[in-house]
């Protein structure tokens, strides 16, 4: 039982770390590259405009998809490793 408890705690803290890391990327691509850092990225040109514009209209959406699939893959694997899958 004690073992189950520590395993559960470990599972949850891994999940929290994974979420935190993913949300840092989530915020970086959209609020960072797409909005706040756009002036800093204006030197990098992409198809007639700059990298910040690309992130705001395309890059962030692609990154969101990548993040969700990465998270789903990682967590579903963790469920199996910990014997917590349904």
């Amino acid at each position: 039982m004690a073992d189950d408890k520590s395993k559960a705690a470990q599972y949850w803290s891994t999940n929290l770390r994974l979420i935190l890391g993913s949300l840092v990327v989530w915020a970086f691509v959209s609020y960072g590259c797409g909005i706040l850092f756009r002036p800093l990225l204006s030197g990098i040109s992409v198809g007639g405009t700059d990298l910040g514009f690309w992130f705001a209209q395309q890059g962030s959406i692609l990154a969101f998809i990548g993040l969700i699939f990465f998270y789903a893959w990682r967590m579903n694997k963790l469920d199996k490793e910990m014997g917590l899958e349904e």
Partner: protein
Amino acid sequence: MDQFYINLLFVGASFALYFGIAIWARAGSTKEFYVAGGGVHPVANGMATAADWMSAASFISMAGLIAAGGYANSTFLMGWTGGYVLLAMLLAPYLRKFGKFTVPDFIGDRFYSKPARLVAVACLIVASVTYVIGQMAGAGIAFSRFLEVDKDTGLVIASVVVFFYAVLGGMKGITYTQVAQYCVLIVAYTIPAIFISLELTGNPLPPLGLFSDHTASGMPLLAKLDQVVQDLGFAAYTADVPNKLNMVLFTLTLMIGTAGLPHVIIRFFTVPKVADARWSAGWALIFIALLYLTAPAVASMARLNLINTVYPNGVDAQPIQYEDRPEWMKTWEETQLIKFEDKNNDGRIQFYNDKADMSDKGWAGNELTYNRDILVLANPEIAQLPGWVIGLIAAGGLAAALSTAAGLLLAISSAVSHDLIKNSINPNISEKGELMAARASMTVAIVVATYLGMNPPGFAAQVVALAFGIAAASIFPVLMMGIFSKRINNKGAIAGMLAGLVTTLVYIFMYKGWFFIPGTANLPDNVDNWILGISPLSFGAIGAIINFTVAFVVSNATEEPPVEIQELVESVRYPKGAGAAVDH
């Protein structure tokens, strides 16, 4: 064949398909009615979620919004997709594990409180009703434009169709019709976009075409667009936004609002397992992205096309004669969506930004005004595509409106029959009785939505402010805290929800009028009067922060939640085991 009959054929065929699905997918139990029996494949659920999510606004209006605002309106693109990351990681898997039927169900159980459940029901109903009115009205307009019936008649036809599959099949019928509706709407959206992208850039993929060279001028498409709009006195399409704080907060409000909208969340209750809920969010975003990556391309290309139509010899040369205008302009003039007024009586269409003085050219003001929806609706005609593509757009617009309307109506009716009737008024109601109550609530919800669609109240135009504001400020934070904190108790949750809700509503009402009654606003709704430049539409994110803070402070000042509630929180965190506290 006459365009009217082509449209009729496409719309009729798509409706026949929806009816067929409705008959096949009848609901026999409350579980089937509320969550489609919990057996929907994650990819199918992803498609259904995409149709559920992408409304008439996404399909018809979003490209026009981006065309008008350029970079500044990228907020909608990021905001309406980024919420799925939050859903996938912060809400969907745990709420699926919880395994009940509605969003207020979780709030009521987790915060062991009937008042909390009722506040959640109220938030859900206000947000969803505001949202559904726009869908019904959108369906009515799509009908009237493409099938030449009166707007109200169109609305009634749309309601009857929704009634048929939503009342009969509940979530089960809605899910499988949404899958079909997704296919219809995505084909309808992308086909004209592919043609227009090929025509302008030679690239068949619109998202790549957006960043390619404009064939006619050899310049990058966006550079060309920037140049012509600036020559006409408009701001550059890719121009940066000075008020970054507001842009960040607005995007954040749309993201957490998306994650907190009940009709989206309940879609994740329909998949078999927690693992499927995670995958399903990813699939949903892929299907959504197919449209959301195409929309900005449609936006810039349609705007350039429109300018090229008016200035066939370039913006430095004379615009076209009104008499020589293309056929599509004549068609859409009849709908009043595009209007021409010859202010300087020269018979030509001067289309430019009035704020720039062009009197040296003999121009006396902008002479062409258009509704931004026209950029999608008239897209096939502007690109000179065959009639069947127009029929497809008609069917696609209706699919987008109806699929979202059905999802919203289910969220409303399940909150009424399950949370109000079953869990608050009459807990002893039988399974059969609850299923009847669910069907009856759905019927009432459809009748009310139809009536409000015909006579839209003032708040109907405030979907972004009201629905996203409420979902962001009250529903999302309380769900997240319910999962990620064991310490938040009933008092904290209720205080937090109310604090977030009230501050957000007050801030919106200050600028948009109390209860949206014209003339009751305290301050003019413009950037000079906004506190720190924060628009009322962006306040939901601040409301969410207030909600989190109040809930935290109040909970820590009062007693801990009971042990069984802490066990409940434990149990939703793990897909299996670790305290089977909840009795399913």
